[in-house]
């Protein structure tokens, strides 16, 4: 079973996540899932039916969750540790650092319902700090798929990766933006539109919005290069520096705090090697008000219009 992609439709990527995981589990008996009472919210009900022995539920216990994942990897399994992003990365940060990353154990951490996908449930359930936290941990790959195609590719890539990885699985519905067969590789950005005026670097839910912004700006005579950065760690440094050299400025866009995610990673590289004007779009260091995910994205300007406005600012300033 694979998700059939339909143009102009949007997708909750958890289906692609579960489909690919089941395909992998059917191919390789080392594939195992560990979750924290999150069978339903990780969309793993079908997986549990098909592979009951390979769905470990540790209950509501995130520290145990990650440690158990590391132990399963030690015992020869390929563990996909799946839990809501805020609890996985917040409650178990030290386990991710010590048991997975520092121990050099290939645990695949799947942050479900990330960003502000839980909308009205409030900041306790928002996972906007995750990219800053995960990016700070050495030897941990951090990938943010943008659509079902990339979600499937991320799952398959991680299963074969030699080290630990954090995958942020989108729940907020997104359109398909990735051509089938696009390589999914650490440190490799995907160029979605060409343009020499400004580069927009986006991840996850913001990628389709960046493409839409580029379409609008094209009509105004502004050429925008859109890069789906995909990996924050390791980042495509060449693509960042080429963008800095070849276009007049960079806009970054992410559904995360701007303290340490994509924008911070890009800025660190650009500032040291080829300074150009930047606009860093994301959630400021502030707890969100009440509202749906869609409302909150609008509220923080994380829309095609918000991205287009930032590009225009750079163009007029340059």
């Amino acid at each position, binding site marked *: 079973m694979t998700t059939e992609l339909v143009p102009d439709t949007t997708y909750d990527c958890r289906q692609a996540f579960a489909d690919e995981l089941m395909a992998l589990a059917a191919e390789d008996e080392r594939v195992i899932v560990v979750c924290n009472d999150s069978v339903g919210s990780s969309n793993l009900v079908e997986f549990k039916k098909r592979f009951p022995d390979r769905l470990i539920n540790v209950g509501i216990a995130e*520290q*145990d969750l990650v440690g*158990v994942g*590391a*132990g399963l990897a*030690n015992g020869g399994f390929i563990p996909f540790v799946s839990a809501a992003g805020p609890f996985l990365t917040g409650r178990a940060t030290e386990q991710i650092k*010590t048991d997975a990353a520092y121990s050099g154990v290939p645990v695949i951490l799947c942050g479900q319902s990330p960003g502000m996908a839980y909308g009205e449930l409030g900041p306790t359930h928002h996972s906007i700090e995750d990219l800053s936290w995960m990016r700070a941990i050495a030897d941990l790959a951090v990938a943010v798929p943008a659509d079902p195609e990339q979600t499937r590719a991320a799952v398959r890539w991680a299963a074969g990766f030699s080290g630990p990885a954090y995958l942020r699985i989108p729940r907020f519905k997104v359109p398909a933006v990735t051509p089938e067969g696009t390589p999914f590789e650490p440190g490799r950005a995907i160029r979605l539109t060409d343009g020499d005026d400004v580069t927009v670097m986006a991840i996850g839910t913001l990628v389709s919005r960046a493409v839409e912004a580029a379409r609008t700006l094209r009509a105004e005579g502004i050429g925008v290069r859109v890069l789906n950065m995909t990996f924050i760690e390791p980042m495509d440094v060449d693509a960042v520096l080429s963008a800095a050299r070849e276009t007049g400025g960079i806009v970054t866009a992410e559904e995360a705090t701007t303290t340490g995610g994509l924008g911070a990673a890009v800025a660190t590289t650009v500032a040291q090697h080829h300074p150009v004007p930047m606009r860093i779009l994301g959630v400021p260091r502030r707890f969100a008000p009440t509202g749906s995910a869609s409302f909150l994205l609008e509220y923080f300007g994380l829309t095609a219009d918000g991205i287009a406005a930032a590009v225009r600012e750079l163009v007029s300033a340059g």
Partner: protein
Amino acid sequence: MLTADPDAAARYRAWRDQAAGLGTSDRATDLARLATEVRRSVITMIDGAQLGHIGGDLSVTDILVTLFGAVLDVDPEDPRRPERDRFILSKGHCAASLYATLAHCGYFPKSELATFMAPMSALNGHPNRTKVPGVETNTGPLGHGFPVAVGCALAAKVSGASWRTFVVLGDGELQEGSNWEAAMTAAHYDLASLTAIVDRNRLQQGAPTEETKRLEPLAEKWAGFGWEVRDVDGHDHEGLLAALRPSETGRPVAVIAHTVKGKGVSFIENRVEWHHKVPTAAQVKAALEELT
């Protein structure tokens, strides 16, 4: 990554083979001899580094020596053999005792012990599996090793393998909630191949455990979490050998090993201030004279 000392590993294998034919009392005598060697190494290492957790190192030594000397199915020359028994020192601050035990079993040359905590040494203050063979997971922050051990035991269960998993926990460490998450998971999945050993020396960094945040009734806690519980004198090798036998109930086994912090050196024994105090040159000499 350090590599095995082939001669020491061969001696270790021969020793294990020979011990298998001995009665438990003779095996215990052998283990006591090795424990003294390990304690001497610990004192020398801490003297060299001028750092270390001497009290806990000395309380856990007999447990480590019994495991590596008589219980664990391991091969120091093939430390990642898939079917090996797993051992995790969750109280990672007692790395010196673990390193000394591993070196005496041939996992790496004993000469490496002199580098303990020196710049660029593989022998960090807390064990690192990417540098030290015989280490299964990096520990240091407390409450980490136990969940990983549960994962190891689950791996054996799901894959139908017969290897056993052992984890050594500090008693103060049990104040970390993650341990009780792990205890519930192990009981829920009936992980009979898992043994958790508590180094019950009754002292933590600044005060007795019972003054800091009491653990008692400890055996009842483990029993209440669904574990088979065994109490033992953690310095009695014969008793430890018996306590480390496989589960008899199909449930995971908790061994509460009653120990003395600083065991073996009279002026260090059972004194809070020796959690991580470094002995003077005269004290080192006196300690080594006691450890013979």
